[in-house]
């Protein structure tokens, strides 16, 4: 199918009778709007990356991409590899990615095994509690951990200082590489668990059946059956989360940046926003391209793997009878204590410390005496100060606009992929999927360059504007949203649309009256998730931040860096409540509004 093919239902008939060879192969279906959305997708993904790539080879006197007297040069890349200051961040990034993946995946595999394979009490409650933080904005979680792990007054450190021989400050340091690695590992757990649990569930069934039939030894069953069966599923999770960790920004930014612990993504940010001096666009540019490659290659691999393995249905779709292993005595208690400990320290404690700090005028260890100092000034400020109100308004506008645009584009993309099935449809699916592999910082830098370039040539006023932020958020969310809408549309039998076509309904009216109403649960789900995501996103918002487009996440981050902990905690809690509320609402949508299809 080629671009010259589209026809609309309103064009006079003569014009539809095109005697071209393409038209012979072309199907008679009219298409138009969906192609526009498809093209928008390609533009959204390509333009920023092309600008990024192009400007990385250009150097100018002003330091701006395409600035006065710009010319071709490899010096941006040369500086990345020769700048001694970048050795640390690169080493840090390797440690950070490997370490956080190890922590995140081992914890989630452990929890998944306990929940899916054993008869542990309260399994479903534990599962819900472990997964719940998926809806907590990472910038907020970062602040909570900063409060818990502060070397002097951090709650966890104070607990540890009870041990004889351990003295303040320490022993843990919120800003250390070890801390940000472990905390990032915790951040990876909820989503990893969601991905790993089905893998463990299905293979455990296979294990039981194999055991019954062959009577093979435990070790043989493990190495011959379970591991090979789980390997593809686990590998997919590993690659996906590798990309997530490689581009992680919030935790390293909140915890490490002030203390000088940089990873690649935060090093890019600090090149753009140095504590002293002017932004170093060239260095940020070169590093961004490298980070992009670092993240995109595994993402491409993942796409091919998953593309082949919607057929992994063997792993996820089939239901085996669950035969839980009964844990006895000490093992049972050890498992239960470990799970309870995880939930207490990683899920409950961060929320508690946020709540506590939001009602305390200054840092104070939770105690009876401190209860008398409880005040609600921070919440009062949030709702009354005018700059806060405009920040909240910006945030809501960003969320609503981005979610709406992304849902429209994603729905059209799904339609192209599922109903047109052509090469272009698949291409657009790849483009939409790629967005997950574009690190937020890199996208931020790319859009920054796009805005600088267009502003200097066309004076559009894109730099630091709300529209720029909305565009960025649309790009970031496109991949996930397209997956949701594709899954939703995939449930609608094609005949329902064909029937409308036979009734004489044109393309748009089929989509409007049949397809969209039928897939409305999926669209609502996608909208709410995008909305919640846009609210919590720090990476893009902080890189593209200006006084004109300030949003809550940036406000939080700034307050935290200025030491206004009380307001940061209060804002963080509010943001968490909205985000969790939206996520729960999205789940409701999908579970209760299923429509039976005729």
């Amino acid at each position, binding site marked *: 199918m080629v671009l010259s093919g589209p026809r609309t239902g309103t064009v006079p008939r003569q014009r539809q*009778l095109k005697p071209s060879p393409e038209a012979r192969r072309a199907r008679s*279906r009219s298409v138009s709007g969906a192609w526009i959305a498809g093209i928008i997708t390609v533009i959204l993904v390509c333009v920023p990356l092309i600008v990024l790539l192009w400007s990385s080879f250009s150097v100018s006197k002003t330091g701006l991409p395409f600035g006065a007297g710009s010319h071709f040069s490899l010096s941006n890349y040369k500086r990345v590899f020769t700048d001694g200051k970048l050795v640390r961040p690169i080493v840090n990034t390797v440690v950070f990615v490997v370490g956080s993946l190890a922590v995140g995946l081992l914890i989630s595999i452990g929890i998944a095994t306990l929940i899916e394979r054993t008869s542990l009490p309260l399994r479903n409650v534990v599962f819900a509690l472990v997964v719940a933080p998926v809806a907590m904005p990472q910038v907020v979680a970062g602040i909570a951990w900063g409060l818990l792990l502060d070397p002097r007054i951090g709650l966890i450190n104070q607990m540890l200082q009870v041990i004889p021989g351990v003295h303040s400050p320490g022993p843990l340091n919120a800003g250390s590489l070890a801390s940000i690695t472990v905390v990032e590992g915790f951040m990876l757990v909820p989503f990893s668990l969601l991905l790993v649990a089905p893998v463990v569930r299905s293979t455990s069934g296979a294990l039981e059946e194999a055991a019954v039939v062959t009577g093979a030894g435990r070790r043989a069953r493990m190495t011959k059956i379970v591991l090979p069966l789980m390997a593809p599923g686990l590998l997919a999770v590993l690659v996906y989360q590798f990309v997530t960790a490689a581009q992680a920004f919030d935790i390293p930014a909140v915890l490490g940046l002030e203390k000088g612990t940089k990873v690649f993504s935060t090093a890019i940010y600090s090149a753009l926003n140095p504590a002293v001096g002017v932004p170093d666009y060239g260095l940020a540019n070169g590093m961004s391209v490298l980070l992009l490659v670092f993240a995109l290659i595994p993402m491409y691999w993942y796409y091919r793997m998953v593309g082949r393995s919607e057929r992994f249905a063997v792993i996820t779709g089939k239901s085996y009878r669950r035969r839980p292993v009964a844990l006895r005595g000490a093992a049972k208690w050890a498992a239960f204590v470990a799970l309870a400990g995880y939930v207490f320290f990683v899920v409950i404690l961060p929320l508690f410390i946020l709540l506590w700090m939001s009602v305390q005028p200054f840092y104070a260890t939770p105690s009876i005496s401190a209860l008398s100092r409880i005040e609600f000034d921070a919440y009062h400020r949030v709702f009354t100060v005018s700059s806060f109100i405009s920040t909240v308004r910006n945030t809501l506008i960003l969320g609503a606009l981005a979610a709406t645009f992304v849902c429209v584009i994603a729905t059209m993309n799904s339609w192209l992929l599922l109903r047109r099935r052509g090469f272009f449809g698949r291409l657009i699916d790849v483009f939409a999927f790629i967005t997950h592999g574009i690190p937020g910082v890199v996208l931020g830098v790319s859009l920054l360059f796009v805005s600088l370039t267009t502003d200097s040539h066309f004076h559009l006023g894109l730099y630091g504007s709300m529209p720029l932020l909305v565009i960025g958020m649309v790009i970031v969310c496109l991949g996930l949203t397209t997956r949701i809408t594709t899954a939703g549309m995939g449930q609608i*039998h094609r005949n329902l649309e064909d029937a409308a076509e*036979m009734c004489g309904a044109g393309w748009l*009216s089929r989509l409007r009256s049949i397809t969209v109403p039928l897939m409305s649960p999926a669209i609502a789900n996608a909208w709410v998730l995008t909305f919640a995501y846009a609210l919590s996103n720090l990476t893009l918002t902080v890189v593209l931040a200006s006084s004109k487009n300030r949003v809550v996440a940036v406000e939080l981050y700034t307050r935290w860096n200025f030491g206004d902990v009380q307001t940061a905690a209060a804002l963080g809690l509010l943001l968490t409540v909205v985000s969790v509320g939206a996520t729960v609402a999205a789940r409701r949508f999908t579970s209760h509004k299923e429509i039976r299809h*005729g």
Partner: protein
Amino acid sequence: MKDVVLAGVEKTYSATSGGSGVPAVRGVDLTIAAGEFFVLLGASGSGKTTLLRCIAGLEAITGGEIRIGAMTVASGNRVVPAVRRNIGMVFQDYAIWPHMTVGENVEFALRHARSGSLRGDAAKKRVLEVLEVVGLEEFVDRGSTYLSGGQQQRVALARAVVAKPDVLLLDEPLSNLDARLRANMRKELRRITSELGVTSIYVTHDQIEALVMADRIAVMRHGEVLQVGTPEEIYRTPADLFVGEFVGEANLVPGRVLSDASSPPECDEDQRFVAVETPYGTMTALAGTGATPGERVRLLIRPESLHVCHDGSAPLAPGWNAVTGLVRGADFAGAHTELTVDVDGVELRAQAHSFDAVSVGSPVTLTVGAQWVIALGDHPTATSPGPAAEEKSLVERPQ
């Protein structure tokens, strides 16, 4: 009411990755008269549904031409989109929109009708009119998911005809219904389509359905039309062994054509008869495709055309064939008893009246008029694409 003409219609699906495309429809020529009830009969994979979707405009043809009335809707380089063809279609799974009521489903078609959209009271009136025809006028405000299969079927039909289409396409509409309902709906469908006088093209894999409902049938295999004719022609004088076996039960007796034979009395003069050497001796048969002297043939004999005589009183009229054998099996099937008769080591199926006491092991004489024995060339039909596809057709054949 318009006629539909297909001339050399081809549909080849483009190959997904490398290799040549898959031909689903190959060079189909058909002329369907205005107001006719025409059935496309074939096993799954025979291309009948693809052909129907090409007529609908849901698939683009890759060669040939399709005309509806005076309008060429598809030919090599011209395509009239489905929405402008003024065709009504009933889908196999009904495709009733679950988020609309019965009335809304039907009204949707009216609103987008090519013949000019109706709205408001006029639309309501027309919707009720059509729902009355299909017997669902009380269900107009019912949610469409609260309907039985048969009712959904009627809604789909009402929706397809409400805008007075030139042509009505039906894609296996009865295959999801249970047997009794299916039998009722056959009559209903025929009544409604003839009441409306619409040209109907009906796809099915069920030969009984085709025989009962059709004005004419086209039997398809591997994307080609093997035979077009009235139900009786298809059943009595199939063009080849495949068609003969596909449309009904058949005994196939191997043999070799000896010579032409004279027409038995009571038979048309223009029919050609042949004498065929078989394991039971020489039999007289109606000459079908490929029955030339010296050729190997199979004699196709429908079980119900064999007269069963178990008391030795065989009415052997001139030109009749008779064989004797032993009853090996007798399965009571209600209205009749299905017999398996061993004749010189070859088994023949026959039907006896169920009141006749035919016992296993007893000798019987089977007689059959020469005009009910068809000699058909015993070799893969010239049109078949090869041994692999032959094998496939054996697998796909029902029963």
